């Protein structure tokens, strides 16, 4: 367990370093491009690179502190009050006591799909998020199963890694998108204006292609960083907290039928308890981003625990 937490922390550091390196390289490339285009002495490449380095370090630090809020904003989650839903408050409080964790913030997404996730940088700043559909369609035992699963993610520091990935990797794909577009459109405008226009557009085209390739690579990074095992681990730790694996197994059975969440994106999908693209998952690209093990397998393992076979 402690090695697992240490591993999550180490992966977070690797992701942050990767982000800083990537942004610095982009900064250098931009500066190099400016130098090349305007023919000034090669100072811009260094200048841009240093600026990018500083900015990326600042962004990394602030993403450590604010990425949970960004994730909540991206998914359209809002805090719910005790008066609004005392039932879920009682359950979250009780299970937090059983898990030995501080009581996390409780948020809800207005969506009829059945899903849930946890975010935050550490257990002291943990947040659990449910969709309205989940709270309305599951019984107490099933919701307790889901809560225990999310509390396990908090306890294991899966939330730190998952949340940082959303922001930093998401930012990289946005940046590469912007660069890609500006090269495509910018390149077209310039053709014929300068003598070396033809050569330049070829360079831009190659750069654009390279960035196009980047997108799936980013998806692979997410997949590598987030092993599918973490869902199995959270399932079994969750069963230890709720002492009732069948609750989560039944919940997963219901969730897998209607797990679609409108506000989920490729950047946030890995956080959810079940693939938020549910039926959309068959689309070609989402398979690349598939960070969830098959639900049937998870249910099978939980049922083995119920029978006392253990894992």
């Amino acid at each position: 367990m402690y090695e697992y937490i240490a591993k999550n922390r180490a992966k977070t550091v690797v992701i942050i370093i990767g982000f800083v390196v990537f942004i610095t390289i982009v900064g250098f490339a931009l500066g190099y491009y400016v130098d090349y285009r305007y023919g000034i002495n090669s100072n811009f490449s260094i200048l841009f690179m240093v600026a990018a380095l500083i900015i990326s370090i600042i962004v990394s630090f602030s993403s450590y502190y604010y990425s949970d809020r960004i994730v909540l904003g991206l998914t359209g989650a809002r805090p719910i009050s005790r008066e609004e839903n005392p039932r879920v408050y009682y359950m979250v409080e009780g299970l937090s006591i059983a898990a030995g964790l501080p009581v996390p913030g409780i948020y809800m997404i207005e969506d009829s799909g059945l899903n849930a996730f946890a975010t935050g940088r550490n257990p002291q700043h943990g947040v659990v998020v449910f969709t309205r559909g989940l709270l309305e369609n599951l019984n107490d035992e099933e919701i307790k199963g889901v809560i225990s699963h999310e509390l396990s993610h908090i306890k294991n520091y899966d939330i730190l890694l998952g949340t940082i990935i959303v922001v930093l990797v998401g930012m990289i794909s946005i940046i590469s998108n912007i660069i890609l577009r500006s090269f495509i459109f910018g390149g077209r405008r310039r053709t014929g204006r300068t003598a070396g226009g033809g050569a330049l557009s070829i360079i831009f085209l190659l750069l654009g292609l390279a960035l196009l390739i980047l997108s799936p690579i980013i998806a692979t990074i997410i997949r590598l960083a987030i092993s599918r095992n973490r869902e199995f681990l959270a399932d079994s730790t969750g069963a230890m907290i709720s002492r009732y694996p069948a609750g989560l197994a039944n919940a997963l059975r219901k969730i897998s039928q209607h797990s679609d969440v409108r506000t989920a994106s490729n950047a946030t999908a890995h956080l959810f308890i079940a693939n938020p693209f549910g039926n959309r998952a068959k689309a070609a690209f989402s398979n690349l981003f598939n960070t969830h093990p098959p639900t049937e397998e998870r249910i099978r393992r939980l049922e083995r625990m119920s029978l006392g076979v253990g894992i």
Partner: protein
Amino acid sequence: MTIGVIVVIAVILGIALILVLISIGLYNSIISLRNKVDNAWHQIDVQLRKRYDLIPNLVETVKGYAKHERETLEKVINARNMGIDAKTVKDQAKAENMITSTLKSLFALSENYPNLKADQHFSRLMEQLNGIESNIAYARQFYNDMVMRFNTMIQTFPGNVFARMFHFSERDYFEIEEMEAREPVKVSF
């Protein structure tokens, strides 16, 4: 001194140093586990206090409707006072079991007083009490998990050596005596 002797001394010192470092690590992990047990106990205590605070309120409310049930009410109050005075985990567990069972007879009694059952204040108190009782159960689960880890640590080698040296003693589980109060056993790990 020959080189051989120096090497032997260095090796012995090296091994001694490693042993000292391992011992420090082990000692610290025993202490941190013991603190976790204490903290888990504190969590139970918080919930128990909430229940103690609620009981006088509840008794007063019931009194208003069921004046002739003095005996049952007194039992509840006595059990509560016993819980407050309890010093050891075992005494505490005993008192809490008593509180739980006397409260049960109090609720059974409320069935005979429709006006009491209809009282909004009473039903709100009941709801709170149910919440607290399930929290007590959860806190007990966490405490017992921690006690199990601590006890295992100081019963197995090499923790048992330290336990003897530094007088660490095993902690008591917070147990439920009545069979009916036990939660259904559905899982075995």
